[in-house]
């Protein structure tokens, strides 16, 4: 218990729209151990960002956490009121968002935005807070910090802005950093820089939950990976195990799609169809309509997560057949 930084169990987050309840996160359990980097991977609309928002307590209306528990460092978060949550946010858990362009307040100097975090959680003098801000800004690799401190966000490049976001997230040395697609909006060379920075941070003992659709990012950063599809976890495994031995047809397809790009074959591997509409999921396995190994049971019975190997769990009817092991 003490070993885990974050323990999410049976989390359900729904949106209540006029077409009825949409289950963005459906019975998701995950665990981030101390110093571990855990990745969540999935295509757009699979609910991976909603997991992050639920942990941060930042689910917007008409969304709502409808069930499950989120335990951070032994503290249950779902039962906290907003004021208590505010003490946790930024201090114990922090978040880096996808769009560094819009995630910073456009009319506030970046230094002040970083410094603000200290002011919220600690009683320190302005000078001290400023000093700490300058330190963290240079620690995340921002050159000429004194000058950048007084810059407005629009005066910085995308890469620098994301570094500011990371500085903001790390200044209180939180036990958990959530990074939601931190490099999606960035150029390749900048992406590599940010990934290297996150790698370095992970070595300092902070646990990281990284969310991405990019298998490259996950492969480079994560120790343990959860694969999400249509609001549910379909497979989870150690990163090497998952990439070497993907068992879920969806994981298989995703990895195949990426690796066939690198192969010599003229025709690329694809997954037919599109991510289903969360408001209108099939009764059985959500992946069944796109699955090339779909069986009769898949259309009617929803599979459950089953352990298939050391730390490797799978949510697929194939586990019952001989195909798997």
């Amino acid at each position: 218990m003490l070993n885990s930084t974050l323990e999410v169990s049976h989390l359900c987050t729904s949106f209540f729209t006029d077409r009825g309840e949409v289950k963005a996160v459906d019975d998701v359990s995950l665990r981030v151990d101390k110093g571990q980097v855990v990745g969540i991977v999935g295509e757009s609309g699979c609910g991976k960002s909603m997991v992050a928002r639920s942990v941060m307590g930042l689910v917007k209306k008409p969304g709502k956490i409808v069930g499950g528990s989120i335990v951070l460092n032994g503290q249950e978060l779902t039962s906290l009121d907003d004021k208590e949550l505010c003490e946790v946010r930024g201090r114990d858990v922090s978040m880096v968002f996808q769009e560094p362009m819009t995630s910073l307040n456009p009319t506030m100097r970046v230094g002040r935005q970083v410094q603000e975090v200290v002011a919220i959680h600690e009683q320190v003098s302005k000078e001290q807070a400023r000093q700490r801000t300058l330190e963290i800004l240079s620690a995340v690799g921002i050159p000429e910090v004194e000058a950048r401190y007084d810059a407005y966000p629009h005066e910085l490049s995308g890469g620098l802005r994301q570094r500011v976001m990371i500085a903001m997230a790390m200044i209180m040395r939180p036990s958990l950093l959530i990074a939601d697609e931190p490099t999606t909006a960035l150029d390749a060379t900048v992406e590599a820089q940010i990934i290297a920075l996150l790698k370095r941070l992970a070595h300092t003992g902070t646990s990281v939950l990284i969310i991405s659709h990019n298998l490259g990012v996950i492969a480079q950063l994560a120790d343990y990976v959860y694969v999400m599809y249509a609001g549910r976890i379909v497979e989870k495994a150690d990163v090497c195990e998952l990439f070497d031995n993907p068992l879920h047809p969806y994981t298989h397809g995703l990895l195949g799609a990426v690796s066939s790009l690198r192969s010599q074959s003229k025709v690329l591997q694809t997954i037919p169809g599109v991510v289903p509409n969360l408001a209108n999921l099939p009764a059985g396995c959500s992946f069944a309509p796109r699955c090339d190994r779909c069986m009769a049971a898949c259309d009617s019975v929803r599979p459950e997560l089953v352990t298939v190997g050391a730390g490797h769990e799978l949510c697929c009817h194939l586990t019952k057949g001989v195909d798997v092991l």
Partner: protein
Amino acid sequence: MSDGLLEAYDLVKDFPLDRKRCVHAVGGVSLAVNAGETLAIVGESGCGKSTLGRLLIGALPPTSGEVRFRGHTITGLKEKDFSPYRRQLQLIFQDPYASLDPRMKVRDLIAEPLVTHKVCATKDEVTQRVLGLMESVGIPLDYLNRYPHQFSGGQRQRIGIARALALDPALIVCDEPVSALDVSVQNQILNLLNELQETRGLTYVFISHDLSVVRHISDRVCVMFLGKVMEVGPTEEVFHKARHPYTQFLLGSVLLPDPHQRGRQMRLLEGEPPSPVDPPSGCCFRTRCPYATELCARQEPALRKAGDAAVACHRLTE
């Protein structure tokens, strides 16, 4: 350069910011696109690759320089004279959500180029052509009367492709056609583009920032930085024997989808991207180049032959 389908000579495009300053989006690019090939233009945001793509098909007038299509100059033509070339040169857009008029049906979207260029004599003929195009890009024919918002991203991109194909062009500029799509759908579109190239003998200029996509689809690659060509050559040559430092960095930043290769040292670029408003003197990459010398600041390197490729770097000649 004489066998090129499309040739560009010293293309320059400046966008004025105000009275004094301007953005130097494309700064003197010469290249040739051969018939039937796929030429990829890669680079990071702001390197001028989209602008170059638009210059090549005459969608933007260049500040200076010229473009020749099958040996005929197409730069500076009047609308009437340009019209036949317009039909030969088409563009596929990056964002399939923004590039289709939300208030038009699929049939009207695909028919618009046919109607504009008065290709068909009757309405029936237009419909027949539209149906044919829908079939060739894989849109079910009964979706004829639907609106773009009723389709997914991948389907919309197919509509965009059908529209680009409507006039039977010789060359299509694909401006990041898959970067807005999920991986699995991205591959569907890439397969489609490949298939169409084979069946119709198309030539592509494929603009992308994604090196693995480029590697798969292109025959030749042109690497751009800050409006200039750094390196151009056959895909395998550029990927295996990258000669320009920038190309090396670009390839070194690729995040391999393989956890076993985590130990591989990524090559990280230092510093901040220079401004296209006020580019560095000499070689535009020198402010970030670890090998930069005094010569690089003084003189701009020209594209020089190196193996099968051409590279713009002073180091090569030393």
